[in-house]
């Protein structure tokens, strides 16, 4: 699908709305992850407002593209994106992690239509996505299958079992996106368990690898388009992102991986968000 300048502006606007809702929901929840969801907002906006073939009124639509979130802990960004796309009212986001809510702390497929899988325990999304891509190929179905993973998640052995298998089976309708934000709970990925060269690892396992700036909507959508033109190999898009993106005060800080802002912090963060991370004078924020 051609991408116009207007499209880019529209998607970027959605990404900002997704971020604002993330802050609202985390404050209301009083627990949850901040850095990852903010860092993945541009990618989720790109998926839900441009890339995916989907219908919010028919989450089980047979012809939909499949988007699997493997690192379930960043689900606030998915909930926010789904709400803004029309799957459910944005106000419902404020029920995140609360008793009786469809928006569980980690996503549960059976509670909320449109989630595709139940996730949280790391390393399992790629396997499920690969099997779906394989089954679709058996049935001659053309749906695209996307899976989003974290970079810390790459420590899991299950990931590499699936990487090996998807490479062996040459699953070309499968596109994996790795949120390369370089942080995990205990610190920087390269200190906790070095991943580099991530690109060379995936290539060695029979994948085609693309690297992009995960905050550049045009570049990211371009990479997904390029992935479609790669035959006989699954594609891995390493999306370099800034954890906490949009709130300069917490950007790059791994301590924000697993905690929510307080109401006071959120007010400050919201101001930073609305000022375009300082690009817009504060009186407009």
């Amino acid at each position, binding site marked *: 699908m051609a991408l116009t300048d207007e499209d880019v502006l529209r998607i970027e606007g959605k990404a900002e709305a997704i971020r604002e809702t993330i802050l609202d929901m985390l404050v209301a929840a009083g627990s949850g992850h901040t850095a990852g969801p903010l860092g993945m907002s541009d990618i989720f906006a790109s998926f839900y407002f441009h890339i995916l073939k989907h219908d919010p009124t028919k989450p089980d639509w047979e012809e939909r593209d499949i988007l699997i979130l493997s690192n379930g802990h960043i689900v606030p960004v998915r909930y926010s994106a789904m709400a803004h796309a029309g799957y459910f009212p944005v106000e419902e986001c404020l029920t995140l992690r609360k008793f009786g809510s469809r928006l569980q702390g980690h996503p549960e497929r059976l509670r909320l239509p449109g989630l595709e899988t139940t*996730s949280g*325990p790391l390393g*399992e999304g790629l*396997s499920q996505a690969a*099997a*779906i891509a394989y*089954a679709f190929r058996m049935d001659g179905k053309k749906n695209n299958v996307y899976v989003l993973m974290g970079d810390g998640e790459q420590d899991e052995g299950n990931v590499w*079992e*699936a990487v090996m298998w998807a490479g062996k089976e040459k699953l070309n309708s499968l596109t994996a996106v790795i949120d390369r934000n370089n942080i995990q709970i205990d610190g920087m990925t390269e200190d906790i368990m070095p991943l580099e060269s991530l690109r060379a690892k995936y290539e060695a396992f029979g994948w085609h690898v693309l690297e992009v700036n995960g905050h550049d909507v045009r570049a990211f959508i371009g990479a997904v388009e390029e992935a479609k033109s790669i035959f006989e190999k699954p594609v891995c898009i390493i999306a370099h992102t800034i954890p906490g993106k949009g709130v300069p005060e917490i950007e790059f800080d791994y301590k924000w991986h697993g905690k929510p802002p307080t109401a006071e912090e959120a007010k400050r963060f919201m101001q930073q968000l609305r000022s375009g991370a300082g690009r817009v004078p504060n009186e407009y924020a």
Partner: protein
Amino acid sequence: MINPHAKLSSNLFSAEIEKKPTRDGFGLGTVEAGKKDQNVVVLCADLKESTRAEWFEKEFPDRFIEVGVAEQNMAALGAGFAAAGKVPYIASYAAFSPGRNYEQIRTTIALNERPVIVCGMHAGVSVGPDGATHQMLEDMGLMRMLPNMTVLNPGDAEEARKTVVWAATHTGPVYIRFGRSNVPTFTTPETPFVVGKALTLWSAQEGTQPKVALVATGSLSYEALLAARSLASEGIESIVLHMPSVKPLDEEALMDAAKKCGRVITIEEHQIAGGFGSAVAECLSECYPVPVMRLGLRDTFGQSGTPDELLEYYGLTAPKIAETARKFVKGA
């Protein structure tokens, strides 16, 4: 006396009784299910000969999926295949699946309610010479604890075939346990198999009072039957319940047996903690408390040996079961 409604093998107490491993039932059952439903797929983790998955591969090469020695991936792949409308059987040794991939089964299959059929081969000490690492004795416990999971432990190859064919029609996740060694095929194609139902193999002579209920699962039900026959010859009447369905458990049949006999012995090739005996004891302690004795492995791992040596050592052969029953009955 033998329950005529069970339609058991005509060679039941003869040396001529057919002997086959229950895993053969997996091979036959998957081929049968595959013929009925073209969405059936079989995944195997580098053990296609010993799991009998190659019987399916031979018939349906395009629907056989080799995943290599990667049981965690196999379980989550199973969830993915089910998500795409396939009916996946995942096959490996029980020590690895569900032993190694428990969490993948928990999250992507049980919690996610994907109808994956987890097939654990080479369960129990009767694996024999391979030793403790490969003698899975905790699988029924692990699987029984999971909400949404059905747990089946067929008694012979014929019943195993029935469980495998049934599983393809079920809309939820299933665990089926299989053994490696040759065991008597005591059931027939006519023997009823209903998930959630016990099968009475042996009942007391009319007008007599049974003293003990032998409640068994898997191939040891045949040993329980032999024990009951030998006890009857000594004047000790008993009931034998074969329970291939560990979850759901036939609580009604259990309570009925407890009421009739007043004492129950459970028999399984599994740890007595958490497995079948625990399930029976849990049920009876809540619904109809009677003395229960559990036979199985008592907080110990297995070891190398022949299946017969090991079953005898751990007290799971017919003579050992009869000996336990005698003491139990006398002690009352």
